[in-house]
């Protein structure tokens, strides 16, 4: 078990180191996140709608698009350089590779969420409610589910000649629960509603995340096997 964890940690470390050195994905994701917020400013007539009421929806759509942009490249770089062969033939079990990719993507998307929350606060002065811990919990659980699905499908889209164009068509139908319960829960947290009103959504998000993560861990081997 410890060997397994060490192997997973090694891949996570490699991915993050690569990200720190090149900054490729993070820069693109961060820029997109801020730019989407800018476009929303012009897309919505703030004389007609109070932005705060839309806050949860806007933030979630931004996270989804920003996250997808970066996660679509989870396996691209390794495929371009042929490094994927080395990774797949290494003694690390295939599910370990999947989990490592989920962890590194989770860290990236979490950073993007911080950028998104900051950008929306800066541009629109959003009020994020008075329970930052619960907010972090909901965002964490929902993000893990989102990342679990997207990482698996980015391994699929990387092996097609349509590449990342295919990714949203594959993941959006399956991410509906994340959007529904993510938006519901964060919306209520933003409105400082009592915890009881958030719990239900949180449990369903957790159920989705568990199913997605389990299915991804089991199915990943079939996607990448040679």
């Amino acid at each position, binding site marked *: 078990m410890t060997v397994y964890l060490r192997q997973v940690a090694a891949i996570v470390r490699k991915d993050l180191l690569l990200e720190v050195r090149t900054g490729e994905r993070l820069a693109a994701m961060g820029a997109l996140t801020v730019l989407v917020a800018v476009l929303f400013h012009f897309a919505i007539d703030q004389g007609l709608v109070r932005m705060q009421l839309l806050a949860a929806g806007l933030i979630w759509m931004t996270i989804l698009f920003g996250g997808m942009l970066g996660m679509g490249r989870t396996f691209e770089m390794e495929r371009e350089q042929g490094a994927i062969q080395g990774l797949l033939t290494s003694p690390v079990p295939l599910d370990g590779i999947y989990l490592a990719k989920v962890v590194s993507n989770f860290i990236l998307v979490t950073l993007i969420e911080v950028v998104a929350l900051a950008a929306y606060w800066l541009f629109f002065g959003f009020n994020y409610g008075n329970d930052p811990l619960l907010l972090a919990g909901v965002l964490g659980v929902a993000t893990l589910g989102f990342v679990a*699905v997207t990482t*698996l499908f980015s391994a*699929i*889209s990387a*092996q*097609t*000649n*349509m590449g990342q164009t*295919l990714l949203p*068509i*594959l993941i*959006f*139908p*399956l991410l*509906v*629960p994340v959007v*529904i*319960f993510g938006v*519901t829960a964060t919306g209520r947290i933003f409105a400082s509603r009592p915890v009881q009103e958030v719990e*239900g959504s949180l449990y*369903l998000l957790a*159920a*989705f995340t568990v*199913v*997605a993560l389990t*299915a991804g861990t089991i*199915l990943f081997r*079939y*996607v990448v*096997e040679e």
Partner: protein
Amino acid sequence: MSLARIRWMAAALGVLGVAGVLVLHWLVFFWVGTERTMGIVQRIFYVHVPAAWVTFLAFGITALCGAAYLWLRDERLDWAAQSAAEGGLIFGAIMLTSGPLWAAYAWGTPWTWEPRLTLTLLMWFVFVGYFLVRASAEDRQAGKRMAAVIGVLGALLIPLVHVSVLWFPSLHPQPVVLNVEEGPTLDGDMLITLMTGLLAFTLIFFSVFCLRYGLEHMRYQRALEMREQPRAT
């Protein structure tokens, strides 16, 4: 199953299915009583519900055969999964076009975010993704495996999508749910017409399924022959 037998089955099922559809249309247009509140548009029901049933059936077959393919790696399972998915896509399209036509009159709006509607729309898109991945995979074998993964994952997550949409806090009207669940309380003639529709559409589906399966079978045989030819000459 031999190719000749598949062909024979496809033909037999096709003839029965087409006959069933002709009977269904006669029943729908000339025989069954007109529903009181919705009037004549309610007759779309007899096409819509069977199409929906076949779509769900097809998706189930695709998911099961996909999972079995990943496990056993028998090409025939992949042919079956693919054939069912194609049928599902077509019947799904019938359902998704007949539904709004009916709803436009019955509810006064072509689309509402009613759970069943949303679910079937999303399911249809999972089918679309299934074929996009198959068609664009750089490696054919990988394409088959990835398509199977989509089928399985779709089947696992679709129930969750269904639950989420059910609990989505909005004002979704209930009439369609009642309409569908009213099945047993339907008038006798309506029930007979609906059952005819279900039978006819299922027969047509399996006929198309056999045809499609036979085609894959032939392609496979041809590929084998092509591989052997250079050695023979």
